[in-house]
């Protein structure tokens, strides 16, 4: 009885009561947490208990919340307007010591709190916003101190740093072209500075507070960070795409698309792919956790996913803004200096150019009379002729002889199955017999010339076969 009494009115529970949340709400939330931590939702009661005991025993995990080059949107997302929700309450109860935006303290007393926390050790850092490094870090000063120094100093003693929001992950908006601030993410900055502390990236613009709470709760309860993927994001959260779990996915597969805002298709809630939805390329659990107390999220609300979860922690130039603008086009723009263009423009333009060149080339081929079987062959390869190779000369001489013979007979060779007779040239028309006789004569004289290639025997045989008694070979002219 006494025990029940105690848990029933734990510090956390009292706080929740104050804000009108029932125990059922709390347990439901703990079930969600379990899901995000990769546990079965059956673990909800244990999580609830652990959270309450943690809060009760004053085992507050100190969390230092730093603002870098940020718009404070991630903080806003956590505090969500008028009333706090359960994740925020939980976070406040188990953690959170120092926040530039939220703290009641201000100025020097706040800085003092940070120093004391660092000295005491055993704390986590949440870093919001990009790390602007231009002008040697002087671009961002807090209480007269460089933001980069504050991050370094605070991160060195931390158990882990959580980079909250896409800006903190890889520079985000700050690093977008033209990137005057030379911004980068926490992970890259710390590794460049040789600070060896685990970094957890929680992307999105802003980051969903539920994901942050899940990571901190897991750390507080288990003493371990969640399993991370190769972008250092919690794998349980960020290994599936928005497209994988999107409620409009059925429309995608059926080929039911919104091509225009304000259209009938939009009213029907069709898939936003043609409007540049980046869901297929964006790894985030938005459709599952959803936003604003699980109320809705971008695509559900009718906006194509802008891909704000796309991060490249070690490469600020791969920030989600540059990777995904224009937001309403299927592909990103490429930028060369100040000019940006769509991949399709370049590719289709190049193809049209190639086709045009081929058209011109085709006209050239026509003019050069090559369309009808190609130009005449060279008798000898040019390189051979220049390099004086006896064997090549010999072969060339024979080829030339062949062409001369044909000329003499007034024959033009055609692939289409006929020797065309060149009447216009006023030449004598050749008959099969004449042709064969000529061939035989040449083969015979070659044989006499004692250059006995086996092929020539075959040619002689062939000539024999061709010379047969067809006395009146020439038919009528047509």
């Amino acid at each position, binding site marked *: 009885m006494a025990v029940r009494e105690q848990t029933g009115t734990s510090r956390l529970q009292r706080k929740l009561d104050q804000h009108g949340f029932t125990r059922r709400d709390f347990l439901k939330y703990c079930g969600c947490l379990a899901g995000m931590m990769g546990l079965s939702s059956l673990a909800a009661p244990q999580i609830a208990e652990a959270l309450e005991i943690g809060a009760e025993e004053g085992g507050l995990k100190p969390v230092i919340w730093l603002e870098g080059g940020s718009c404070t949107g991630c903080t806003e997302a956590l505090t969500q307007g008028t009333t706090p929700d359960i994740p925020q309450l939980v976070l406040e109860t188990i953690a959170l010591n120092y926040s530039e935006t939220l703290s009641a303290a201000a100025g020097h007393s706040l800085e003092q709190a940070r120093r004391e926390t660092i000295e005491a050790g055993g704390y986590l850092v949440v870093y919001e916003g990009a790390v602007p490094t231009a002008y040697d870090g002087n671009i961002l000063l807090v209480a007269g101190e460089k933001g980069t120094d504050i991050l370094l100093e605070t991160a060195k003693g931390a158990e882990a740093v959580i980079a909250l929001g896409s800006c903190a992950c890889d520079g985000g908006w700050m690093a977008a072209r033209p990137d005057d601030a030379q911004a980068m993410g926490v992970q890259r900055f710390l590794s460049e500075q040789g600070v060896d502390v685990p970094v957890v990236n929680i992307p999105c613009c802003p980051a969903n507070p539920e994901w942050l709470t899940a990571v901190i709760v897991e750390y507080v309860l288990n003493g371990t960070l969640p399993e991370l993927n190769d972008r250092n994001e919690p794998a349980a959260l960020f290994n*599936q795409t928005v497209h994988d779990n999107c409620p409009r996915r059925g429309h995608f597969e059926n*080929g039911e698309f919104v091509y225009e805002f304000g259209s009938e298709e939009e009213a029907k809630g069709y898939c936003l792919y043609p409007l540049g939805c980046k869901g297929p390329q964006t790894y985030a659990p938005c459709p599952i956790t959803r936003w604003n107390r699980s109320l809705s999220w971008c695509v559900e609300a009718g906006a194509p996913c802008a891909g704000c979860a796309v991060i490249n922690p070690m490469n600020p130039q791969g920030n989600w803004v540059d990777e995904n603008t224009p937001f309403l086009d299927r592909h990103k723009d490429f930028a060369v200096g100040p000019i940006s263009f769509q991949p399709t423009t370049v590719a289709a333009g190049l193809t049209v150019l190639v086709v045009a060149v*081929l058209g011109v080339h085709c006209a050239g081929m026509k003019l050069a009379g090559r369309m009808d079987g*190609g130009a*005449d062959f060279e008798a000898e390869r040019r390189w051979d002729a220049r390099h004086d190779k006896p064997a*090549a000369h010999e072969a060339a001489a024979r080829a030339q002889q062949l062409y001369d013979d044909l000329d003499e007979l007034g024959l033009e060779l055609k692939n289409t199955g006929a020797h065309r007779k060149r009447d216009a040239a006023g030449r004598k028309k050749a008959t099969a017999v004449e042709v064969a006789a000529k061939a035989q004569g040449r083969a015979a004289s070659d044989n006499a010339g004692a250059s006995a290639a086996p092929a020539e025997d075959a040619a002689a045989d062939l000539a024999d076969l061709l010379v047969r008694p067809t006395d009146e070979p020439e038919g009528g002219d047509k």
Partner: protein
Amino acid sequence: MAHLAHYREAHPLPMVITHWVNLIAMIVLILSGLEIHYPLVPGVMGIARGLHMFFAFVLVVNCVVRIVLAFVAKSAPAGGTRRLVRDYKTWLPQRDNKHQLWAWISYYLFLRREHPIAAKLGVPQKIVYLLIAPLIFFTAYTGFCLWGPTMGWPIFTWGTQLVGGAMNMRVIHYFCMWVFIIFMCIHVYLSLVEGASPATLIFFWKETPGLVYDPDTMNITGFDGMGKEPDYGETFKDPVRAAADAAAVAEREAAREGAE
């Protein structure tokens, strides 16, 4: 003037089939790929993606088969001859093609009048066709990276990370398609511009008469009329075929006489 004779030995039947498969797969992939890129035709996205993946496998398997064929099948090293060598040898540098890169380029740039004498595949042709196989495999790789984004196979996530994410992978895959389209424009143009003979051979396995090439002396020695008109010069036919062709010629001439 005529081309070299187009003998079946240049493109044996299995290669004719792989070429057909290549053509069909490529057309389906391009059309379905364009639909995936931007679904201009509503209602067929599921079909387009299904076809795209199916023909992706067809294309890759076909390419592998073609490569294996190169080592097991034989083909003629040059046009205008029925002599056979292992097909892969016709893809390597050949004596017949020595120092001919510029010869071919200058021919097509109208800087020279005469057609270069060459092996079955001219130098630029050889280079470009050889690049097609790696390009098919590369395109397939980028396509597979897009196919199973959630399966997280390390071999695919590795490449996706390398190019900076799935968006870049998509754009690269998309560009690959345009490389194929440009290749096809040039390829089809060049294979048709000097007459239909090359195409009738690769598609319908139909031979056409033409000049005869002697791979030993690496030059032209005669003309093979393939039984329609008199042959000329040294044609290197085997005696049986020569007899058949000669008989056909005699028959035609007799028929013509009769008509008279």
